[in-house]
């Protein structure tokens, strides 16, 4: 299977399970919404009975915003002009690549969301691997089965990402600072920084892909050992580096395309009730797209793994019921003539 084939197949698998997409989108919304309500309370409390609120309701008011930021703490510190439109995307991507710390409340929400998604990812990959509905009980049973394996994998991942952001990032951007220390041309320095971002993103992608395929192998092969799955994933990525890289590039290109569309369509600050709904609709459409692409990564990687690995029809047949693993289903259904 080619990278493009896996990508196309991934699209089909994601499209074939819209409930998974809606479920993940809803999960994110459920995590984010309470914080949004808390922030709404902060803004409301600061505005109080002030008549400034009527102007702020109609447009961005820098003066009020700055006054709010002076007294803001915790979650309130994240309410900056960068939340408007496409600036939000730049802000979040920039913060990640520059390794800027998150506000404690947001960091907590992010950790909670990552844990929930980690739990769900077992069921998601299982669903995409089987290419058939697993129903709620099957989906969540798969989540539960794989969660503890993923948790062990997560510990290793946390150590690796901790090293990447804690040591490697510091070393890499320290080297960038040294390299550009006597450079007096900003354009040259920018090229240097872009190169540092590229290196960091590449290393990050390599490790992320290895962890991704480890999850896929845990689910598809019903592996109990997270470490074993990690080693197997490493071997898989190494042996099929070109296809894996191609798939990564396709997924990255899809993300950049989505961001570009959002940059072009994002309406900025709302000025009327109608515009509020427009901002919300366009914003949520973008967020929905981000979820789609997130799932596309799972699905296309699963597809690539199943398509490349030398097992016959390495995917679940549509008729059997959970709890057999996709591999067990495959072996049960396999016909002698198709075995290789």
């Amino acid at each position, binding site marked *: 299977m080619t990278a493009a084939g896996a990508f196309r197949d991934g699209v089909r698998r994601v499209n074939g399970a819209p409930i998974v997409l809606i479920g993940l989108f809803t999960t994110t919304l459920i995590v984010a919404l309470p914080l*949004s309500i808390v922030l709404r309370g902060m803004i409301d409390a600061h505005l109080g009975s002030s008549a400034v*609120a009527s102007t*702020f309701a109609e447009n961005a008011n820098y003066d009020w915003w700055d006054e709010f930021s002076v007294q803001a703490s915790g979650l309130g510190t*994240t309410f900056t002009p960068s*939340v408007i439109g496409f600036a939000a995307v730049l802000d979040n*991507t920039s913060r990640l690549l520059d390794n800027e710390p998150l506000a404690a409340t947001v960091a907590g929400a992010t950790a909670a969301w990552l844990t929930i998604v980690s739990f769900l990812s077992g069921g998601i990959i299982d669903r995409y691997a089987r290419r058939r509905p697993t129903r709620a009980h099957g989906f969540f049973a798969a989540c539960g089965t794989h969660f503890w394996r993923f948790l062990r994998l997560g510990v290793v991942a946390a150590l690796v990402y901790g090293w990447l952001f804690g040591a490697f990032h510091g070393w890499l951007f320290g080297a960038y600072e040294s390299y550009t220390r006597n450079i007096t041309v*900003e354009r040259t320095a920018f090229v240097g920084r872009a190169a540092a971002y590229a290196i960091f993103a590449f290393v990050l992608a390599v490790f992320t892909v290895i962890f991704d395929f480890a999850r896929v192998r845990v689910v598809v092969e019903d592996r109990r050992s997270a470490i074993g799955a990690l080693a197997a994933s490493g071997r898989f990525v190494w042996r099929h580096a070109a296809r894996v890289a191609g798939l990564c590039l396709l997924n990255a290109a899809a993300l950049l395309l989505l961001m570009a569309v959002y940059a072009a369509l994002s309406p900025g600050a709302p000025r009327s009730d109608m515009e509020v709904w427009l901002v919300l609709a366009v914003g949520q459409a973008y967020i929905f797209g981000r979820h789609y692409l997130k799932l596309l990564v799972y699905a296309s990687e699963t597809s690539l793994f199943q398509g490349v690995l030398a097992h016959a029809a390495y995917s679940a047949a549509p008729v059997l019921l959970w709890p057999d693993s996709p591999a067990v289903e495959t072996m049960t259904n396999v016909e002698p003539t198709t075995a290789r």
Partner: protein
Amino acid sequence: VLARPVASFALAVTLVAGAPAWLGSSSTRAQIATAPSGDGNAPTRASGPPRAPRIASYSIDATLDHAARTITGSQVVTWTNATAKAADTLRFHLYYNAWRDANSTWMRERSLSRTPPPHMREEDRGWIEVTSIQLVTDPANPRDLTKRLRFISPDDDNPDDRTVAEIPLEAPVAPGATIEVRMSWTSRVPRPFARTGAVGSYYFIAHWFPKIGVLEDGGWNCHQFHASTEFFSDFGSYDVRLTLPRGWIAGATGVERERQDQPDGTTRHRYVQADVHDFTWTASPDYLVRTETFVHPTLPPVAMRLLLQPEHAGQEARHFESTRAALRYYGEWFGAYPYGHITIVDPAWQSGAGGMEYPTIFTAGTRWLAPARSAEPEAVTVHEAGHQFWHGIVASNEFEHAWLDEGLNTFSESRVLDVSFGDDRLVMRYFGGFVPWVLDDFRLTRRAESYSAAAYRHAIGRGGDTPSLPSWQYSPRTAVATTYHRTALWLHTLEKMLGWETLQRILSTYFQRWSYRHPKPEDFFAIANEVSGRDLTWFFDHVHRRSHDFDYGIETFRTNRREGPAGSGAMYRSTVVVRRYGEGTFPVAVKLTLDNGEDVRWDWDGRERWKLFEIDKPTRARRVEVDPDRVLMLDVHRTNNSAAIEPDGPRAARRWSLVWLIWLQDQLLTYGGFV
């Protein structure tokens, strides 16, 4: 004052009898200050009849060794004792010693600021060493006083600070007498810590030579180099010969009179400028040179020379238009720029030299990616070009009264930007600051309503200093807010109180009367009272002589139905309590708006802690606002200035929390790639 003799230095001084004709025999600095300032309409005017008292003049020969990053120089300082008292010592600023090590007063103070200096590597350090000082009484037999040089720390007794040197004289310099001092020195050019130094082959060299302090009737005004203040020096003439690598582009205070290639592969540039109080230069092999001329129907022409970084090619017009706007409006509002030439330096990236003013030359500052709708480089260019007037010509003491320059200039800049360029947009920068993003939703009107207010608001939470303190005593954390922004805000208030025409006459009178004379705050206040015809002492007491912050707010607002007299129908009693939350007092208006659109206004002297206003009307009140015309710009807590019967807070909060929700969802998904 702790004086520390240093054995390895030598000095010699020559007394030159007599004083210049304009000085008089028993002159004081005040008398000197009344000297006529000359005509000064000629373009590229670098010399001629004095427009300023030439108290400290310099003839300098300096050679840059690019490989060693050193400057070797010799200079002859011709100095006149313009006070009524004899001078038995000389004091010189040696600014480059601020970066000799981390123990200087500058480095110690900077470490307390919000942007502490980066780690000082060995190769970053700068210093200046005076190798010879001679008082030339007899040219054939100069008196060597090098060994008399000692370092003193008049401000903080820091034994490790070497930014002020004192030389006791064998014989005092009589009032009105002029002496000639020959000095030799070597300096190591630092990596820029404070807008002077070198990065790569880019040099911007300011405060680089031994510079004599200002002798006043009360003694030497020669402060150490402080992290949050700038400079003060006497006017004079400069004749400077710079030897630089051949092929390099140079720019400096004044005009280039000669340029000679030397056999050793260097080029000697000679710059001359009279009636200035400093000399600064820059050199780089990379500059692009652009020239244009400022022409105005009533103001003298000015030759503008732009030294541009190649990566900013295409931004020439923005630099010239900004400089042109400053020359025009400062010229029309305050007085003409007299020198006939100006050099705009576009500093190299990370040179740390941007946004600084020197006589007839200044640094602007822009970015490789500079969106057209942002105020970069316009704001900094107008600001620094504007300094030519308040810093270059009026020349108040920036060690002690920095606000007289920076505050007035921040206010002036904001007016020029307003009339020349209109509203700004907020620009956010991402990815290490390289990538700009313009937020069109934020239209920033007159800059004092945005940047000055914002900057001041952030600082006063930490407690600003009393502005009347000597500026060098300000906290490094709040000095900028006190010097620049508080002053700009109260000048905007003064404009709204008195009207622009009156304030413009105050500023132009101040400029015309005190050009080249180093005015003090009381001189400005006296002119404000005189020109406005009002005693504004109370105002300056509050905004300048006290550190009070200003905050008025609506504490209570309600409107209740009550029965009116028989047959008069329903009446509504509207009740407003206005409270003074800050310590500063200021007369404020209170505006009540009724449901039928009718406005009711009350005036309050603002002195008590609170004030009750009540009125009975047949219509309900809708909203109330204290200081509705936003006269009191120093009241930067505006949210509590108004109240509505039916507040829109919940609607605004809902809208913006939904916008923020998208940011948070995107944030979660950005990190979502890790699972």
